[in-house]
């Protein structure tokens, strides 16, 4: 892809939960500095795939390569080192509800660096500015709206300037204005910080807006991975059906 080297690769991933064969040989490659959206229906295994990319789940077989290193066989200690390259934005933001916004966003700094309190305040302030939330440091997650929580989640994910940011359904449950805002944030984060992004989504509009490539996941396999323009011309029946539901109404 574009000649850029792959940042993350999944090779022939298989994963079952009991009798439920969720991933049935997933192959995926995300080029450095690009944004790849994994598109698929609910229950197609998108979140499971994403959890494999950061090593939260181990595949039954197959490999996950991050910057040339296979993370599947790594020990928890080695994985901890690799995870410093990642920031992850969770579907429900997954903010620690016993902590303030400042404590949430500064959490990775506290754990991974020896910054002073004042430096942390500054760094947190900068990242909150990027996500468009100024002066909410002392609020608790329960005081924030869903859209704000997601943005705080993104601020926390990028606080250590990771090389890779994973987004789990970033626009699900948001109103159109917040959806637009979050889309723009993903684009900005890529431009400003040069991060490689993997976004999982079933939101076709967002996917076409933010992505460099779209990987379509169905029946536990990636059946197409193409730039958005080419994906629209895909002849794969599942892709056609999925896109027609959206473009049929909105084109």
């Amino acid at each position, binding site marked *: 892809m574009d000649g850029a080297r792959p940042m993350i690769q999944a090779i022939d991933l298989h994963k079952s939960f009991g009798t439920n064969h969720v991933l049935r040989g997933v192959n995926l490659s995300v080029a450095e500095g690009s944004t790849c959206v994994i598109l698929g229906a609910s229950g197609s295994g998108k979140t499971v795939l994403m959890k494999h990319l950061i090593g*939260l789940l181990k595949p039954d077989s197959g490999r996950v390569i991050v910057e040339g290193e296979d993370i599947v066989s790594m020990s928890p200690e080695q994985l*901890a080192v690799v*995870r410093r390259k*990642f920031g992850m934005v*969770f579907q*429900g933001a997954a903010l*620690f*509800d016993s902590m303030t916004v400042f404590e949430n966003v500064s959490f*990775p700094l506290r*754990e991974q660096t020896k910054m002073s309190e004042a430096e942390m305040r500054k760094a947190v302030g900068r990242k909150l500015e990027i996500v468009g939330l100024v002066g909410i440091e002392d609020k608790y997650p329960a005081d924030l709206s869903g859209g704000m929580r997601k943005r705080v989640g993104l601020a926390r994910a990028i606080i250590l300037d990771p090389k890779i940011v994973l987004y789990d359904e970033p626009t699900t449950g948001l109103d159109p204005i917040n959806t637009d805002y979050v889309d723009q944030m993903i684009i900005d984060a890529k431009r400003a910080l040069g991060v490689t992004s993997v976004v999982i989504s079933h939101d076709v509009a967002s996917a076409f807006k933010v992505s460099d490539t779209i990987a379509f996941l169905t029946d536990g396999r990636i059946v197409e991975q193409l730039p958005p323009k080419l994906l629209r011309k895909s002849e794969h029946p599942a892709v056609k059906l999925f896109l027609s539901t959206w473009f049929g109404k909105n084109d």
Partner: protein
Amino acid sequence: MADEVEKAVRPQPNPAYLVVEYIGKRVTGVIEEVGGVASLGIDVARWSIRPPIRVDNLFAQLDFVGVGSIFIVMLTGVFSGMVFAHQSSRAFLLFNAESLVGPTVALTLTRELAPVFTALMVTMRAVSAMCTELGTMRVTEQVDALETMAVNPVQYLLVPRVIAGLVMVPLLSMLFNTAGMAGAYFVAVNLQGISAGTFLHRTQQWLDPEDITEGLIKAAVFGFAVTLIGCYKGYNASGGAKGVGQATTEAMVASALAIVMLDYVLGVALH
């Protein structure tokens, strides 16, 4: 239609097999759970001796489990001592053996009532909260979030809680003893008219330090067990609010059962 035909044709299993299958499933389920708790216990032990030591988290839990339970434990202790003194003095007065009220209450409290009741109170007050909190963190992906930030959730979340149980339940149990004896003294001496000298002297005569130690060992084991069970259930919760509720119910039941079963085992083992 096809389903009905198949149902009619398919031989029905012998009811006896169903009973055996049911019992078998329950037994393997219990064994699986006990194994899960045990392996989590090993994990907790392993991560408790590794840096970084999270002093803040530990103190927060010591405060929550220990300091937060002082009032309720002492209140339970006072009333347990009072009712026990009341009942036993009524019985002992029948055959003029009221001098035995003090020692009877003291031995029962230190060896049995204090560790068991303290552990039960801590289970209800603190372990239920732990289980719910951890369960909510699990289902809202906060546990995953910790892991993605390269923080081990067992070390960050579970180690301080289990240590707090291990340390604080024995201390609370001592408070229970103290409060219980005070309550018993009040009832026996002030209400039942037993002489203070007899009460204290006989208690001192019969109660050995080993009785107190036995109670403390029990309390430590109970504290470790109930916090571990609560953590296990919460940490492995799934299925949203309903799942968390179910995990907490299961944790309460399992903890209470663990307390009475371990009480018997330790009672036998420590003699």
